[in-house]
């Protein structure tokens, strides 16, 4: 179920060149004020939403860049950030 992912350096490439890096969960929580619940939420929990999500990818078999894209999980294709607003 190959699809294309746009690497900021290399442009659109085959998805198998990349490694999925998880949903975008925002910045790592501050360790000073961290509760077990917040840590669990950051480490394990996911939205698993039907539709467009912001997510991390790593160009493993390429330039080694980490970056975010928007992808529609129902269609399994990369979409633009405008589609996310339309989706929600």
């Amino acid at each position, binding site marked *: *179920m*190959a699809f294309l992912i746009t690497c900021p350096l290399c442009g659109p490439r085959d*998805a*198998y060149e990349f*490694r*999925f*890096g*998880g*949903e975008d969960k925002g910045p790592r929580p501050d360790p000073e004020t961290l509760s*077990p*619940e917040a840590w*669990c*939420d950051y*480490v*394990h*929990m*996911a*939205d*698993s*939403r*039907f539709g467009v999500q912001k997510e991390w990818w790593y160009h493993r078999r390429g330039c080694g860049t980490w970056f975010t894209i928007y*992808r529609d*999980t*129902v*269609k*399994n294709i990369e979409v633009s950030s405008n589609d996310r607003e339309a989706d929600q």
Partner: protein
Amino acid sequence: MFLKFNRLWKESPLKSSYDAVIIGGGLHSLAAAYFLASRHNIRDVAVIEKKFIGCGAAGRNTAIVRANQRTQENIPLYKEALDLWPILTKELDFNLMFYNCGNLNLAHSDAAMKAFRMNVATAQFHGVNSQLVDARQCKELVPALDITDRPRFPIFGGMFHPPGGIVRHDAVVWGLARGGAKLGVHIHQGTEVTGIGVKNGKVAWVDTDKGRIQTTKVLNAAGAYSAGIAFKCLGQRLPISVLTIQAMVTQPLKPLLHHVVSSGAYHAYANQTLKGEIATGAHMDPWPNYTNQSTAHYIKHQAEAIGEMLPCLRGVKFMRIWGGLADMTPDMAPILDGNVPVEGYYMDCGWGYFGFKSSTVAGKYMAQYVATGECPEMLKPFRLKRFEEHRLMGETAALVDYTANN
């Protein structure tokens, strides 16, 4: 021979209220509905399925059942599931075609043999028949195996689990649907759950595209879709990654595989169906999505793996490939919980690719949970809170790259 076939269950109109609503029309839902009606006399139950029953993982798995799991919390659950097949066959008066041909799991290193030694000891402690076998015994069980040092991963030995085998998955769907419907369960196909209503911290109704249902009890057993439904309807986040897993069958052959054979090193398993096809699979694309798309990439990998494991199958053609969804948790164990985050809401999800073999037992205990409101002892280790308490189960010896965050 030309009997007139009647429908196995009847269509019923969607009522405006039910004692319990079960989301999803797969095996876990149908089993829960059946056990609610047959064991707890709660017959005013609706099973809400967006497409048709058995359309998801219930009809897409490779039908293998076994109880040689790794941890002491999981084994009793799977053992009971295995014991239930003959009981349900009789009780439902429906041939589930349980064929306990046994599962042979291959080890390709001393480390793998050591891991099996622990698995076997745990299984035997819990009364599950599981044995260590050496390479020659593997060859005696499955003569088609190549036990020389020629293959990429030579066979060191294996773990043989005689009571495991294959069950006809569609028959389980039909048998449970008929059994439940006979007792009064309403199965609503082509109906989508669009929301769950909460009043004073309790479940009050379920919205569907066909109308609102008043209810105080909801069981989310929608398989791989449960995590997305929990987020959409209740904003609940779960430690689940939904990945597509693929399986395929070859052209039919004369009987040559009399056991289910699997190998972690090749990342492949194979069994011969009663039609003679070799059903094989195990691969998942490592990014979450809700499609059932399959990949040329994995047909090639599967051909290579099977050709090494069972060299006589080289040149045999694949006939069909399909994909289904697996909801993976970080510890490869399910989440079975109730009254989280709201009272009256129950979840049966996170089964990954163990959902078929566990379906009936999960349904049985979730029905007890929903009926009594008390968590059965059997399900207590599987609560959602374990992730926060960092008490993950060791269902997998080493964390594999299945979940997105590993």
